[in-house]
């Protein structure tokens, strides 16, 4: 018998050309002695070939996508006889590929969702940040794609998917290259790298700073000016180093490179952002925002024609009632929580409700009809699992019924039932362009939709910006009645199929006006 795990290791090393002479001898003896070993070896080699084949064929497919990484050019080699059928075959096999055109814009478009494989970090904090033109403009909670981040001021905390945490102090330019690799062109960063993320690397011109499980700071002030400070653990320096240069820096060590001249200096923790101070600054900022919001919320309650207002503050698990805070609202319009759990909102101290289970909802009831209606909600979409993810449904089966939802492709959709019949054509509809991509999951946004029965127009707004509008062909009176926030009642016969329409995410404010708010009002309430 042979040691199968050992055979696997040796085979793997052989295929990666890593075998030492002794190991090669050992592998050969195993293969000669056992038919089973040969069988395993050939099988692994075949998978190796399949992976290479996949990579070669994959290149051909990737050429279709502009964002694809540059394929390696595998040229024809020798043999002029390779023409005709052989060329056709080669192209089909992906052996020969034209070079890929250079990408036109290395910057990132905020609205364009990068494929998941292109995302490398989470923007965990942004304090007092001013983004530079073309250097991204991301919200806290955004998944950051590969590419440049440029800020003229402020502080960012980037949580790389490798586990490394980087605090970047502006003015700064950093290029995110992979979950464990970044290029610092300008600015100061502090990287804290827990053991699982060991190997996290920051590049600056010719220098590669490779972390060995530690905390270090780096300050790049020009093309030839760079400092590396090690606060804890060890850092390895790679690249074109002078012969005398240290290849490794330990706790308390630092180097300064100015115009190609290297100098050892003591590490200076104080010249870099203190992670605790960054955290405290973030807490202070969020506290100030929360207090400002509370003040605004008091004024909001007194706005004219505000019918329903939930702020989701001060909720306790198991507490079923949510007060309707609209001025003059009576108890009968309070909401009832079904299933949802109290969770934090935009700031740690802000309350919100989490919608996760398919039964989760807040039920409330109002009455009457109105020609116009405005719905506003501050929401965090966590995923779009259903084909219809309802923010609100109201007055089921009645003419004037309202559906307010995000469809699975991330478009905001309004439906107003204009006729009683069970047909697609019975509804007035307004669909927005895509407002939620996978990249927006976990990001807070304010959604508003206006039905203006007098002007005969419907409008969608995201974060105060109008993103869609359309005339109404019919102008049914909007029916107020039984409403579900974050869900809908699946009782109507036309909804026999596809009846799970629950919302997945958080809501921290919801309001309903019996008039059409204008764009200026919506911007002001953003």
């Amino acid at each position, binding site marked *: 018998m042979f040691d199968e795990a050992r055979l696997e290791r040796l085979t793997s*090393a052989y295929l990666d*050309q890593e075998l030492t002479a002794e190991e090669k001898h050992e*592998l*050969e003896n195993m293969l000669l002695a056992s038919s089973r070993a040969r069988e395993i070896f050939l099988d692994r080699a075949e998978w190796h070939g*399949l992976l290479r*084949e996949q990579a070669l064929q994959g290149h051909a497919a990737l050429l279709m996508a502009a964002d694809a*990484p540059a394929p390696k050019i595998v040229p024809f080699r020798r043999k002029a006889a390779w023409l005709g059928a052989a060329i056709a*075959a080669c192209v089909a096999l992906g052996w020969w590929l034209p070079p890929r055109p250079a990408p036109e814009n290395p910057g990132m478009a905020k609205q364009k969702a990068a494929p998941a494989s292109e995302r490398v970090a989470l923007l965990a904090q942004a304090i007092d940040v001013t983004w530079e033109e073309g250097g991204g403009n991301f919200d806290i909670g955004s998944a950051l794609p590969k590419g440049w981040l440029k800020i003229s001021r402020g502080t960012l905390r980037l949580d790389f998917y490798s586990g490394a945490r980087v605090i970047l102090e502006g003015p700064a330019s950093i290029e995110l290259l992979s979950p464990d690799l970044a290029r610092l062109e300008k600015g100061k960063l502090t990287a804290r790298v827990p053991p699982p993320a060991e190997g996290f690397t920051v590049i600056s011109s010719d220098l590669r700073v490779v972390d060995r499980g530690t905390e270090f700071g780096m300050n790049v002030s020009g093309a030839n000016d760079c400092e590396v400070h090690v606060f804890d653990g060890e850092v390895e320096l790679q690249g074109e180093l002078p012969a005398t240069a240290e290849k490794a820096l330990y706790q308390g060590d630092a180097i300064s490179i100015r115009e190609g001249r290297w100098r050892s200096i003591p590490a200076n923790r104080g010249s870099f952002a203190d992670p605790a101070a960054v955290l405290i600054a973030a807490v202070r900022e969020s506290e100030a925002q929360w207090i400002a919001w509370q003040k605004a919320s008091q004024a909001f309650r007194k706005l004219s024609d505000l019918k329903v207002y939930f702020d989701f503050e001060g909720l306790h698990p198991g507490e079923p009632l949510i007060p309707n805070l609209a001025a003059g609202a009576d108890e009968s319009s309070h909401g009832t929580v079904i299933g949802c759990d109290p969770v934090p909102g935009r700031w740690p101290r802000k309350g919100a409700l989490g919608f996760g289970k398919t039964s989760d909802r807040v039920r409330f009831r109002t009455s009457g009809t109105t020609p116009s209606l405005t719905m506003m909600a501050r929401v965090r979409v966590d995923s779009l699992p259903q084909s219809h993810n309802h923010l609100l449904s109201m007055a089921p089966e009645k003419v004037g019924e309202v559906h307010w939802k995000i469809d699975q492709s991330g478009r905001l959709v309004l439906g107003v039932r204009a006729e009683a019949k069970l047909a697609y054509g019975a509804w007035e509809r307004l669909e927005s362009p895509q407002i939620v991509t996978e990249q927006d999951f976990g990001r807070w946004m304010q959604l508003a939709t206006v039905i203006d029965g007098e002007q005969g127009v419907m409008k969608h707004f995201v974060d105060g910006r109008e993103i869609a509008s359309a005339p109404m062909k019919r102008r049914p009176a909007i029916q107020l009645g039984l409403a579900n926030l974050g869900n809908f009642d699946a009782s109507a016969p036309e909804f026999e199929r596809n009846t799970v329409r629950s919302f997945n995410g958080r809501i921290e404010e919801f309001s309903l006006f019996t008039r059409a708010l204008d764009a200026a009002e919506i911007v002001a309430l953003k």
Partner: protein
Amino acid sequence: MPQQPPRMTQEEAHTAAVQGLFLQFQPAVRGYVLSMIPDFSLADDVMQEIFLVVTRKAASFEIGTSFPAWVKTIARFKALEAIRAGRSRCETLSEEVLQALGAERSEFHGDTDERLALLAACLQELAPQARRSIDLRYKQDHLPPQIAGLMGCTVPSVNVTLSRARAFLRDCVLRKMDAAKT
């Protein structure tokens, strides 16, 4: 009179059919060549030479007989020829071992299209670090020391990552193939 498009002769049609078979078995042939010559770039050359021989000798292949067995003989011959000519820059196994391996199995898998499609799906399931290692190894033709340099980690850790990633991908594809059968 309208001109007839040039018609393929019977011989040309036969050659095209044999070339089609080669495409079908190409990943398996490549795996076999790589088992003898781990160097991707020499293996690519040898693959092209095998294709040339297959094209030239297509007439001697009888449709209906085992194509894998036929192409394997050619592949073995061309790979050994390259090794004997000293073209390999990397260590190859001794001729005795290559003989033993050659005698081991006569058939290649013909279900490579399915495996390739499933492999593409399984690659998506890999952890980012592993995915990058696999890309650098197979797309960029980098060896572990280069990958270690690019990823800022050690060669042994790259070896482990690659080895685990391959095992994961193999299991993943086989699992999906099993699932597809039920």
